[in-house]
């Protein structure tokens, strides 16, 4: 009998694949079901955000930031305007800050809902996905009521917001929160505590804290590894320091610290924290004019700024260089999903193909932001 030789097989996941969350291509070296190496190929959605930014004026960049992280457009806008205001040293009215925080946190809830739902879909549970999408739809309704768009808002402007909150928004929003909070328990019963779900995610794809930091992993993924780092608290921007909320950190609830379940669970807890923030903000939102501080002409002084904000996916940074003209000289977006994806190879070595899908899903990537 000859020697049985097992060659490695190259498996191509994507660009069209149900669970690559867009158009990502993974070149996976496998031995049977076991994965030995993953080479991610990006750029299938490279839409030249940075080139556009150098060719349009500062205010025209905002719609393009929408389209980068299309699941959390409000937060993308938020990061850009915060960076711009730091560069131009604008002080915005309190009402604007409150509105921005309400919108940002609502969008965080919406984004996490989609992330958790799609994660369930990756693991094979179809129904939680639709339940979460159903509730997300209500948040989109509120956005639509406020600024007229469902997905890409162009809502936050440098120095203000495009529209004031509509009539009765507070009432509608409180109504939504009252409806929504019990729903979280439903998701937990349906998906989180499902034995099969726990088996599939606990202990799988562990990212140790030092590896996560070295790879620049941020946001819920980093907190899932047990690092207490939240830009909202630690490098506070806007008026986040006025609100009381906890930073949920993974604790290896069912398995090892930093596994897929922790990342999932941190997101679930973050939804609750966001709800808390929204309630506080709605309660003491002051009245005022939201267009008061809008600059007539956006012509920042010469200089540069790098500012991070907390988007649902992690540290969303903008590096803006101004040369004194109305067109930015350079806008760089430091996207959290980009860094999160980069650790996929290291994390998934030795796991099975099904686990790679689970790990990829738990990183919650958005390709629009990775490829820009």
């Amino acid at each position: 009998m000859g020697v049985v030789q097992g060659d490695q097989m190259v498996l191509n996941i994507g660009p069209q694949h149900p669970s690559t969350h867009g158009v990502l291509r993974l070149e996976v070296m496998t031995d049977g079901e076991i994965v030995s190496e993953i080479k991610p190929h990006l750029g299938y959605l490279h839409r030249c955000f940075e080139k556009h930014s150098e060719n349009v004026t500062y205010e025209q960049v905002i719609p393009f930031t929408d389209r980068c992280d299309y699941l959390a457009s409000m937060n993308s806008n938020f990061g850009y305007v915060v960076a711009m205001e730091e560069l131009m040293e604008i002080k915005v009215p309190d009402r604007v800050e409150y509105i921005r925080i309400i919108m940002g946190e609502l969008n965080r809830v919406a984004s996490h809902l989609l992330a958790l739902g799609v994660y369930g879909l990756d693991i094979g549970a179809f129904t939680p996905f639709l339940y979460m999408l159903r509730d997300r739809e209500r948040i989109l309704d509120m956005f639509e009521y406020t600024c007229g768009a469902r997905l890409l808002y162009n809502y936050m402007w440098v120095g203000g917001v495009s529209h004031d909150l509509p009539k009765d928004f507070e009432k509608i929003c409180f109504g939504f929160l009252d409806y929504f909070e019990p729903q979280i328990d439903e998701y937990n019963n349906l998906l989180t505590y499902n034995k099969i779900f726990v088996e599939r995610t606990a202990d799988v794809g562990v990212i140790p804290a030092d590896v996560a930091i070295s790879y620049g992993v941020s946001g819920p993924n980093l907190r899932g590894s047990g690092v207490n780092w939240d830009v909202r608290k630690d490098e506070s921007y806007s008026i986040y320091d006025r609100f009381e909320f906890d930073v949920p950190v993974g604790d290896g609830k069912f398995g090892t610290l930093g596994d897929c379940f922790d990342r999932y669970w941190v997101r679930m807890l973050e939804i609750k924290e966001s709800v808390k923030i929204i309630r506080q903000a709605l309660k003491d939102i002051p009245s005022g004019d939201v267009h008061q501080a809008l600059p007539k002409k956006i012509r920042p002084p010469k200089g540069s700024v790098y500012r991070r904000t907390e988007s649902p996916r992690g540290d969303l940074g903008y590096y803006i260089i101004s040369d004194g003209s109305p067109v930015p000289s350079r806008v760089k977006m430091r996207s959290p999903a980009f860094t999160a994806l980069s650790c996929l190879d290291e994390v998934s070595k030795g796991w099975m193909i099904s686990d790679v899908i689970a790990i990829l899903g738990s990183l919650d990537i958005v390709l629009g932001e990775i490829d820009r």
Partner: protein
Amino acid sequence: MTIEEIKITLTNKFSGSIIENEELSDKQIEVEGSKWLEIATFMRDDPNLSFDQLECITGVDTGEDATLQSRYNLHSMEYRHKVEVVINHDKKNPKVPSIEQVWRIGDWFERETYDMFGISYEGHRDLRRILCPDDWEGWPLRKDYEGQESYHGIVVPKIKEEDEWE
């Protein structure tokens, strides 16, 4: 540690390699490209600096004066202080040592900057284009970039330059 203390620490250790530049803001430090790998390793490993997180690498084309820049935003999870390191490159032959093995995320950030600006990071183990296809021509984010006319038989329609926005 404040930015001045960081600057002093670095100047004491690498006296010749920290360049004084009046144009930079007070958060930025310019260093000499050739020494960058040693400086980076020191910045990560020194117990007082402990920059364990590379936030971002930004490539910059400064325009007419024919220089490219790499800007590194560093952050320390332990001390929560941050600094920005600026390195100037010659536009004709932009190269700088790779810090891919110092901070693992440097791998992809350097590939991205290479893809967009053509800055070559020496010592990088896998320096390929990351966003554009492998057979793409030119460095898109340089100011003098001209788009391709066709790609694999797909013709890119010529767009008439509109008048300036009113």
